[in-house]
């Protein structure tokens, strides 16, 4: 019997539940020489903004115990270049493309959603309301239930595409935000974005990152991510895409057991470019070993007695 790894999230059919976490995989083409991207369940683009964004001053990366800080600041060429030069390169891979969008204002989210509605080859939108590295927009939208709901509602109204809202863990109670975006029409939720953090050079008495603060990712955040995913999965009915420190198939399965319908892999891509393929194979091995016929049987299968 062949294991069935297919999942469907907000009407998007995926051949397996594994995708990249936005921002860690560029626009896909960067990794094409290193791995077969068509094997992925879906491809999530780096955040696209309405206008080009040049990003934060360096240094932007700092290794930490069990992970890394980044403060890229959403550097991207903007919607126009994305549509003309990046998106077409992803055609022909038989791969649902989820475009991550980020705005400084509600109007920018709406304009992005409306433009992508017309673009061929876009399977869904991931709405970034959780970037800790930009001064305007970003996490500010995701930290408050009413503004999170307002962005979700506006994007929902501007596009018929599935709307996945990406949440920040840097909040008091993530389930409040999750319920707010569900109520505002989100088709699915993805979490977690990075945990806000910083690093200091004590000899120089200066912050290490050019942006002073950044976002923490990597295996160090996995327990926090699992907890947040588990809580959100109990709070909402829409599907959840879980991420945060996934390094291997076991980690991915843990997120599914906690309730995630699919998973995304972030910083691990930097360590091992083909790690997502290894995770897909590892999930299949697990299913064979545990006699799981359909991968969605793992979703929320955590047993707490």
């Amino acid at each position, binding site marked *: 019997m062949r294991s069935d790894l297919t999942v469907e999230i907000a009407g998007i059919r995926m051949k397996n539940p594994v995708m990249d976490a936005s921002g860690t995989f560029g626009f896909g083409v960067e990794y094409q020489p*290193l791995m077969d991207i068509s094997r992925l369940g879906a491809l999530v683009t780096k955040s696209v903004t309405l206008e080009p964004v040049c990003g934060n001053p*360096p240094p932007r990366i700092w290794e930490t115990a069990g992970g890394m800080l980044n403060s890229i600041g959403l550097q991207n060429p903007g919607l126009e270049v994305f549509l003309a030069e990046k998106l077409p390169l992803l055609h022909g891979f038989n791969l649902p493309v989820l475009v991550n969008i980020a705005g400084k204002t509600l109007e920018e989210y709406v304009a992005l959603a409306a433009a992508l509605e017309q673009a061929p080859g876009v399977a869904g939108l991931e709405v970034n309301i959780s970037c800790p590295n930009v001064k305007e927009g970003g996490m500010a939208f995701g930290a408050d239930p009413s503004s999170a709901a307002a962005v979700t509602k506006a994007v929902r109204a501007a596009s018929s595409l599935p709307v996945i809202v990406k949440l920040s863990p840097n909040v008091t109670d993530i389930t409040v935000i999750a319920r707010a975006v569900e109520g505002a029409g989100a088709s699915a939720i993805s979490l977690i974005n990075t945990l806000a953090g910083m690093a200091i050079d004590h000899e120089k008495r200066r912050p290490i990152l050019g942006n002073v603060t950044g976002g923490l990712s990597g*295996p160090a955040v996995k327990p926090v991510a699992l907890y947040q995913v588990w809580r959100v999965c109990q709070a909402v009915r829409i599907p959840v895409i879980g991420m945060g420190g996934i390094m291997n198939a076991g980690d991915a399965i843990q997120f599914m057991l906690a309730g995630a319908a699919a998973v995304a892999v972030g*910083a691990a*891509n930097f*360590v091992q470019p083909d790690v997502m393929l290894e995770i897909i194979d590892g999930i299949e091995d697990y299913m064979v070993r545990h006699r799981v016929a359909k991968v969605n049987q793992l979703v929320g299968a955590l047993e707490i007695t």
Partner: protein
Amino acid sequence: MTIKAVGVVSRAKPGQFLHIKCGKAAAPFLRRPLSIHRVDKEQGLLFLLFQVKGAGTLWLASQQPGDVLDILGPLGNGFKPPARDSALLLVAGGIGIAPLFFLAEEAAAKGSLVKVVIGARNLDHLLLLDKLAEAGATVLAATEDGSFGFRGTAIDLLTKALQEEKADLICACGPRGMLAKTASIAEKRQIPCFVSLEEYMACGVGACRGCAIKVLTSDGNMDYLNVCSHGPVFAAGEVAW
């Protein structure tokens, strides 16, 4: 350190780098970018020359003959090969000689006149003087404490060298301050100049935008380019020092 890597060696160009997983465990977490020091095409060997600076390079230095390394590469653009018969002037600060040696060797073998200005704190930090000479390069050495060669910095010696003889092309690698000064000297004398830069790096393949450096675009605006995929070699005039 010598690595057998036939596929990498056949494609490697001076100035390119390898992204190396240092350690089998989760720490150190990120790969380490190390420039290719030189290659032996016939034997399929890669040579690395590095300073132990932290956990990554410490692990790398502890590897034993026969161990297997996880490397990505060759990555990055590398130096543009100099024109035949041109006078190539290399400026190296300390361990910055690592990638420049590869360039010196290739350029000398292809008929360029290669001169290397190399500076370090003291004689102990002056590397490869004999090997550079063997490769056919003229070596001008400077130490800050005067323990060998010219007493002063590589920049002092560069200024002196350019007063004595012209250069068609300058390529430099070393501390950022030294590179900035080299860039300004080259600009004043209108000599094309390329520098190899470093920045903390995550993916190594142009995806994450982590290793950005500030550049000036042709229309006078500023932008950030990746050291890993646009560089590590940049035209000196392009960099916003």
